[in-house]
C-alpha cells in the first residue's frame, strides 16, 4: 500500500431537521491510500453520499454541521475557507458525478468544460490547454477527440458523456478521485465499459479513488477495499476478496444473499426484515442493525458497538456477528390466506 492520501477521522455530518441536528454520517474514520480503490457500499439513506459530499465540501453549510477531521495534504479540509478549498477542489481532488445528463453544462462545449478547471488551477497557454484536453479525451477512450472537443453534451450518448465527466475530473491530475455512483445511470454494457475504463486509468495514475455505490457487483469488479455502511456507520471494512469470501457482519451477509445473481436456482432471496430507519427515528443506542435481526438475542450485541479487528485489515462492528445465522424462510411479509372471490 502506498502513502495515505486522505485520512478521515471521527467525521460526523449532521443535518438540521426542524431545528435539531441529526447525524447522517456518524463517527466515520477511514484512510485512503495512493493507488487504491476504496468502495463505500450501502443502501439509500445509509450516509454514503453524505460522506462523499462532506469530503469535497459540497454540503449546504446553513443546514449542515461537520465535526471531526478530513485530513488531505496536511490540512483539515473542514476548517478551510471556501477560497482555500477551491484551490484544492478540481485540482488535487476530482469528482465524478452519478448522472452525466445533469453533471455537464448544456450550454458550453465539451472542450471548454474540460479546460475550465485547467484555466483555474494550472498556468498553461491556450494551445497547451487544448493539447492537454485532446489528450485527456483520448485517454478516456473517445476516438474522434477533435470533433467531440467542439460538440455540446446533448450531441453525445450517455456513455460518452460519462467519459467526458471523467475527463473533467482528471483534468488537473488529481491525487484523489471521488466517484459517486459513476455507473448507476448507465446501461449494462456501457457500465461495463466505464468500469473497465476506470480500472485502466487507475492503473496508469497513482491516485486514490473513493467509489460510492449501492451495487455489490460494481464493488466486486473495481474495489481494493470495501467499507459497508449502515445507518451512518461503517459496519464492516475489509479487502475485497476477504469481504466476498468471508463476510461477517449480519448486514453484509444479508445484503449479499439478497442479490438475485447469487441465487440463480430460483430459490427464495433473503429479505432483511423491517425498514431502514429515518434519521429522526434512528435509535442511536446499541447495535443499529439489531432491530432488523430480532431473532438474535440481545446479549449477543455489544452495548456500545465498536469496530473489532478480527483479522489484519478486516474490521467488524458489534459482536452480534459471532453467533449470527440467516433466517431464510422469514420474508417479512406475513402470510395470509386470500380466497379468490
Amino acid at each position: 500500500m502506498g502513502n495515505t492520501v486522505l485520512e478521515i477521522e471521527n467525521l460526523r455530518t449532521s443535518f438540521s431537521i426542524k431545528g435539531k441536528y441529526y447525524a447522517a454520517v456518524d463517527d466515520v474514520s477511514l484512510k485512503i491510500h495512493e493507488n487504491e480503490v476504496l468502495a463505500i457500499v450501502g443502501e439509500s439513506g445509509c450516509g454514503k453520499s453524505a460522506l462523499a459530499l462532506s469530503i469535497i465540501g459540497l454540503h449546504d453549510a446553513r443546514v449542515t454541521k461537520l465535526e471531526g477531521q478530513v485530513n488531505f495534504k496536511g490540512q483539515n479540509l473542514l476548517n478551510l475557507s471556501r477560497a482555500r478549498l477551491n484551490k484544492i477542489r478540481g485540482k488535487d481532488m476530482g469528482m465524478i458525478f452519478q448522472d452525466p445528463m445533469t453533471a455537464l453544462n448544456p450550454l458550453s462545449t465539451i472542450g471548454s468544460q474540460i479546460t475550465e478547471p485547467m484555466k483555474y488551477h494550472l498556468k498553461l497557454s491556450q494551445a497547451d490547454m487544448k493539447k492537454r484536453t485532446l489528450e485527456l479525451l483520448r485517454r478516456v477512450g473517445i476516438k474522434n477527440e477533435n470533433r467531440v472537443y467542439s460538440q455540446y453534451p446533448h450531441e453525445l450518448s450517455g456513455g460518452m458523456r460519462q467519459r467526458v465527466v471523467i475527463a473533467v475530473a482528471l483534468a488537473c491530475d488529481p491525487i484523489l478521485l471521488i466517484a459517486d455512483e459513476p455507473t448507476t445511470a448507465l446501461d449494462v454494457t456501457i457500465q461495463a465499459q466505464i468500469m473497465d475504463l476506470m480500472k485502466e486509468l487507475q492503473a496508469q495514475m497513482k491516485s486514490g479513488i473513493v467509489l460510492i455505490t449501492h451495487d455489490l457487483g460494481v464493488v466486486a469488479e473495481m474495489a481494493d477495499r470495501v467499507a459497508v455502511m449502515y445507518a451512518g456507520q461503517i459496519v464492516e471494512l475489509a479487502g475485497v476478496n476477504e469481504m466476498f469470501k468471508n463476510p461477517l457482519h449480519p448486514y453484509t451477509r444479508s445484503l449479499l444473499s439478497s442479490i438475485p445473481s447469487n441465487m440463480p436456482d430460483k430459490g427464495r432471496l433473503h429479505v432483511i426484515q423491517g425498514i431502514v430507519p429515518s434519521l429522526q427515528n434512528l435509535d442511536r443506542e446499541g447495535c443499529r442493525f439489531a432491530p432488523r435481526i430480532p431473532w438474535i438475542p440481545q446479549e449477543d450485541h455489544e452495548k456500545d458497538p465498536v469496530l473489532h479487528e478480527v483479522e489484519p485489515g478486516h474490521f467488524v462492528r458489534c459482536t452480534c456477528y459471532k453467533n449470527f445465522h440467516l433466517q431464510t424462510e422469514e420474508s417479512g411479509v406475513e402470510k395470509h390466506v386470500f380466497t379468490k372471490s
Partner: protein
Amino acid sequence: MSLLKVNDLKVHFPIRGGFFQRVVDHVRAADGVSFEIQPGETYGLVGESGCGKTTTGRAVIGLNKVTSGEILFEGKDLAKLRGKEKRLHTRDIQMIFQDPYSSLNVRKRVLDIVAEPLRNFERLSPDEEKKRVQALIERVGLNPESIYRYPHQFSGGQRQRIGIARALTLNPKLIVADEPVSALDVSVQAQVLNFMQDIQKEFNLSYLFISHDLGVIQHLCDRIGIMYRGRLVEEGLADEIYSNPKHLYTKRLISAIPEMDPALRLEKTHLRQAIDDEYRTGYDNYFDKDGRIFDLKKISDTHSVALP
C-alpha cells in the same frame, strides 16, 4: 394453446418535421417481434434502453397503437377487438409499473387506488369493495387498516406492493411488469421479487417481465427474449441463454454483468475485450447490410437465434 402469442408485432412512431409537420420518417421501436407466453410462465424481455422492450410491453396491454402484427390473447387479436369484447379481455391483463413514486396518484387514498379497477369493472357496494381491498392489502403484507392512508406515508417497497395489489384486484391472467424492481434497493428488491413468485403460484399468473437487469431476469424467468434495436436477437430457456449464448449481442450483454467474485475480475475484463474485438471484426455475420437483425432461426426445440 398459449396464453399470449405476439406475432410479428410492429410499433412505429412517426417523426414529424419540415413544412406542416409532415411525417418524414418512423422510429421503428418494435420491428417484427414474435414470442409466446404459456399459462403460469414467466417470460423475460431483456435489453438496453431504447431497444423497444417497454414499447412491446405497452403494446401488449394496449397503451401503444400497434402498427402491424397480431397480439393474440387466448386466441383473440387484442389489436382488432373493439368495444365490449376488448374491455372484457383487457381486464385479464394488468400492469406493474417501474417507479412506485410516480405510478400512484398522490391525492388518492390506498383504498381508492386499489379499488379503481374494481369500480371500472364490477358493481360492488362500498362495504364489499372495502372488504376486497382490505383482503388484497393484507395479502401484499400491509396492514389492512392502512387503506385510508396516502401513498406518501409508505416506503418504496410498500408502494410497489400497493401497485401490485392494484394489478391483482381483477384476478388477471397476465401481468406485464415493466422494470418493477429497478427503482428499489437490493433488500427491498428481494422482498418484491419473492412476493411476485408467491402470488404467481397462488393466482396461477403469467408474467411478461421487462427488465434491463440480467441478474433479476435469470433469477425469475423461465424463458428469455433478448431485444436489440426493436427486434429479438435470441430467445430460449433461461439456462440456455446464460450458459450458451449464441448471438454476439447476447454474449456482450452477458459479459457485461459484473463479476461477483473479485478473484475472477481480470478474466472478465479480458472476455469483454475479446467480445468487443469480435464486435468490430465479425459485425457482418450478425447484421445484414442495412444493419438490421436477421429473423430468428431455431437451433434447438427451445432456443432460437437471429443468424443468417
